[in-house]
Structures are given as C-alpha cells and as structure tokens.
C-alpha cells in the first residue's frame, strides 16, 4: 500500500513536470488577443509618430516582435512593403503579386480586410519564424492613420491549425466592444 502511494506521488510529480516542461513552448505561441492588441498599438504608434516610426518595425529585436509573431507594415496604395522584421528582402518591394502556395493573393486580401472599420482577419500559408516550413497563418490587418499618407496598414498573425475565421471575427467583435471585452 505504501509502495503504491509512493508510485502514485511519483506519477503525479512526473505529470506535473511534464506540464511544466510543456508550458514554456506554449508560452512562446502568440494568441489572437495579443495579435489584436499589438496591431492596434502599432496603428496608434504610427498615428502618433508618423512616417518616422516605420523603421522600428524592421527591428527583429524590437517590441513589435514577440513570441512567434511580429507586426509588419505595408502600403496598399503604393503596392509596397514598408517594414518587415523577418523579411528585410521584401522591404520596398511590390506586394500585390505575392501569393501563398494555394495561389491566394495575400496582400490583396489583407488590404481588403484592413479597410474594414475594425480591421479584419485573413488566412494564408506563410513560414513560421524558426520552423522552416509553411504553416497556416491567420493575420489581423488594420489601417494606420498617418499624416501626408494614405493606404498604410499594419498586420500581425497567429499560427494555428484549428481556429476558424468566424471564431476570430466573433472574438474581434467582442474585443471591439468595451463592455464585452471586460468580461473576457
């Protein structure tokens, strides 16, 4: 009996250890709430700072990169990537012709979603930082209001195989309602 208890306690400890071991990797995965908050903060930052703020989004060690996600900035009207912390090769290049492996024109969809009053979500395939392979990415796009410019948007995404666009849209609606967001 005493031996059985010891085994049970050891099993519990091992299980707890397993959970604790899994926790850091989960802590490195950005969630939808973080993405929406970061993108909104980025839009506010550019509203306050103007075009001078673009360069901060090219810094992969800066505050706009966190966990497995990052904010990127692009110009829908001029068809240009303005800032991207993970892909400096894309900065200054045209974006509207960029497709994922299913042929979806990623930035045409992002620009359309970002023009909605509260912004919007777009699903596509994109390399996850550090993973070295394509993953399902769902990005939240939002227009950024900047002096002497039009068509600037900011976006960031989550890498998630299960969550659906309707679920994310409902979540965005709740986050846009201060009364409901408090209850989350």
């Amino acid at each position: 009996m005493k031996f059985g208890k010891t085994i049970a306690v050891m099993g519990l400890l091992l299980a707890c250890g397993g959970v604790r071991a899994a926790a850091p990797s989960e802590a490195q995965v950005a969630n939808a709430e973080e993405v929406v908050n970061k993108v909104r903060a980025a839009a506010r930052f550019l509203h306050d700072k103007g075009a001078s703020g673009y360069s901060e989004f090219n810094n992969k060690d800066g505050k706009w990169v966190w966990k497995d996600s990052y904010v990127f900035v692009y110009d829908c009207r001029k068809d240009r990537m303005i800032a991207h912390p993970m892909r400096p090769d894309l900065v200054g290049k045209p974006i509207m012709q960029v497709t994922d492996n299913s042929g979806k024109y990623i930035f045409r969809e992002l620009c359309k979603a970002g023009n909605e009053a509260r912004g919007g979500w777009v699903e596509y395939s994109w390399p996850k930082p550090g993973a070295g392979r394509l993953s399902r990415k769902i990005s939240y796009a939002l227009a950024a209001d900047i002096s002497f410019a039009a068509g600037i948007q900011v976006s960031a995404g989550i890498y998630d195989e299960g969550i659906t666009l309707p679920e994310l849209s409902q979540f965005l609606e709740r986050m846009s309602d201060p009364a409901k967001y408090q209850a989350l």
Partner: protein
Amino acid sequence: MAEQKLGNPAVVGLAGFGLTTMVLQFHNVGWIGLGPVVWLGLIFGGLAQMIAGLQEMKTGNNFGYCAFTGYGCFWIALTLLLLGNHYNIYTSSKTDVGWFLISWTLFTVILWIGAMRVSSALALTFTLLLIGFILLDLAHFGYPDLTVVAGYELMVTAAMAWYIMAHIIYADLFGRDILPVGKPWIS
C-alpha cells in the same frame, strides 16, 4: 543720377512657395518620400521665402510681407515638426498636424480675401490653396484618402504660383506683359 533698379522679392517668394508645395504633393500622391520635402522645405520654401517676405516690407506691400513671411514660416515649422517626430523632440501626432493645418487654413482665408483685390491669377491661386488646405484638414480628420486628392489639387496651386512668378520675370525681361494675370475679383 539714375535710380538703381531693384528686384521684386515676390519672384523668390513665389518660386519657393510653388516648388516646395509641388514637392510635398509629389509625396502626397506617393511618388517620393519625405526627404526632399524636409530639405527643400527648410531652405527654399522656408528660409528663402521668409527672407523674400521680409524684403517685401521695403516695397510697402503688406500682402506680400505677410504672405511670404507667413508661408515661409509654415514650411520651416512643418519641416521642424517632421524632424521633431524623427528625433523624439516635441512629437506631433496626426491629430496635432491636423490642428496645425487648420490654423493655417484660417490664416489662408484672410489672405484669400486680400488676394481678390490684387489680380485674378492671385485670387485663383489662393482659392486653390484654400481648397487644398481644407482637403488636407479633412484627410487628417477621418478621410485619409483625400490626401491624394489634395495632392493633385495643390499641384495646380503650385503651378499657378509659378505662373505669377513667370508673369513678373517675363514682363521684366521682355519689356511687356506676355502672361496676363487678369483684373482683381474685387475692384
């Protein structure tokens, strides 16, 4: 003893006003970045136009004195505002810039009425300038796409300023008025 011929400071004022306004619109419609706007704004639209405005005092032209000195200061202030944002010195948000532009819109209303007493070309220039300022105001308060509309509209304003500049220079060089500016709208 013959009286020494003096130049008209307005040609420099109109040149700086027109060129810097034109370059800002090249940015607003998306053709260029902010670099040329900042440096030309400081030197030609700002310093040169402001000096031209201060020289208008000696000619007794209060309209030119106020307009060129005022818009020269506008350009210096705008470029310093952009530099301030870059270096985190008294940063200005889009809303702040919007109110900055509204104050210049009000200033322009006063000169717009005065311009109607000078010539048709100047009245048209100030009408276009006022419309451009209003479009930029709206672009800063809820209608960002109007930035591009203002861009094209203000290019015409800049061209009108250059037309008046050319009118003065050519009248001097050719000895006759080959680019008429028309009668005042209010006589």
